[in-house]
């Protein structure tokens, strides 16, 4: 599973960690995060994330 980076603030979504504070369990692929999820640091939506190389 790929990591994704927030292009606004640099937050990195790591599927191994998830975002448990906001209901995203560890092991959740970025693609499977609900569409209303937002960056926990700056608040932008999924569309502002890009795959981290």
């Amino acid at each position: 599973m790929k990591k994704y980076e927030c292009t606004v603030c640099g937050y990195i979504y790591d599927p191994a960690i998830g975002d448990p504070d906001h209901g995203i369990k560890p092991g959740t692929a970025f693609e499977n995060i609900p569409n209303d999820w937002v960056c926990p640091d700056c608040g932008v939506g999924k569309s502002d994330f890009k795959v981290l190389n």
Partner: protein
Amino acid sequence: MRKIKNDVYWVGYIDWDLRNFHGYDTPHGSTYNAYLILDEKPTLIDSVKHYGADEMIRRIKQVIDPSKIQYIISNHTEMDHSGSIDVLLKHCPNAQVVCSPKGEEGLSRHFKKNWNFKVVNTGDTLDIGKRKLTFMLMPMVHWPDSMATYSAEDKILFPNDAFGQHYASTERFADEIGVGLAYDEAAKYYANIVLPFGSQVLKALEGASKMDFDMICPSHGMIWRGKEQITGLVQRYVKWANYESDAQVCITYDSMWHSTEAMAKRFYEVIDMAGIPVKLMNLQTSHMSDVVTDVLKSKVVLFGTSMLNNRMLPTVGALMMYLKGLKPKNRFALSFGSYGWSMVGFKELETSIQDAGFELLGEGKYIRFIPDQDELAKLDSILPLIQAKLAAK
């Protein structure tokens, strides 16, 4: 104008009248600091709010003809630091505006102009003559566009809002107003502006630790100088960014008919008698921005409200909304209050407390109408819960 190092001048604007910075209570006013470096290519770092443009230009003119400025470095898009760039560019039409990629987006959205931008990233340098300035992006400290400028030759870090304080003074250095006071104002600034961004602050501090500087020139308030002052400041930032707090308690509340107030005062008495530092902050007299400063310092916070139309009082609601955005971590809280018939608003308060990131210490303490002596005495049972949390590392 004030010379702060050889060929480096403070040319900012002092906002003596400011009493409210988007809701942040600023009883001492503030400053927007701009710094002019004289070199082959004179460079201005940060600028001021739009209404301070004339004063800044007057100060620049004490040093050089503004038209000689080659670079205007915008470390941060927010208009308290960039709001006068358009006026400034009329005086130095050939100057390039140096900013981060997000800075270019942000400034373009604010001014709707195609300025001559020079976009920089972390590690990029700008040759201005004898000096080479280095940039470090600091996303979310405290906006996506935020960055710091570093002058190795001058041993100065220009971190914009980071390390700032809202404090207007004729003095420019922290030691000139008293370092303790400057630290207190830096704490209030951190609590109100920087608190949500602990992990990003740690990243920025890590980057700054590789730089050698003996002066920090923030965009608000006093300049920090000397190893001791700077170490003390950085240690505080590390502590706050790790969401550490002190073994103290803050009781904040609002009350309609003095019952919630009586509860607050009973808590205050029992905690104080136990020798624990505790502060009582009535939201009718303490400003929300001071309350969050005490939240920054306190491991335990007690939130009290009366029920008004089955809801928490608006002052408490506003505080909770503010805290939800500021996201303090590693802290414990308890709710309390007086009610007449319905308690549904207390559920909302408990949810708000948890949404803001606090862990509840235990069940909220709620009393119908006016507490009697027995009921007040029962409130003392929270003391061991608080002591246990304060004793834990």
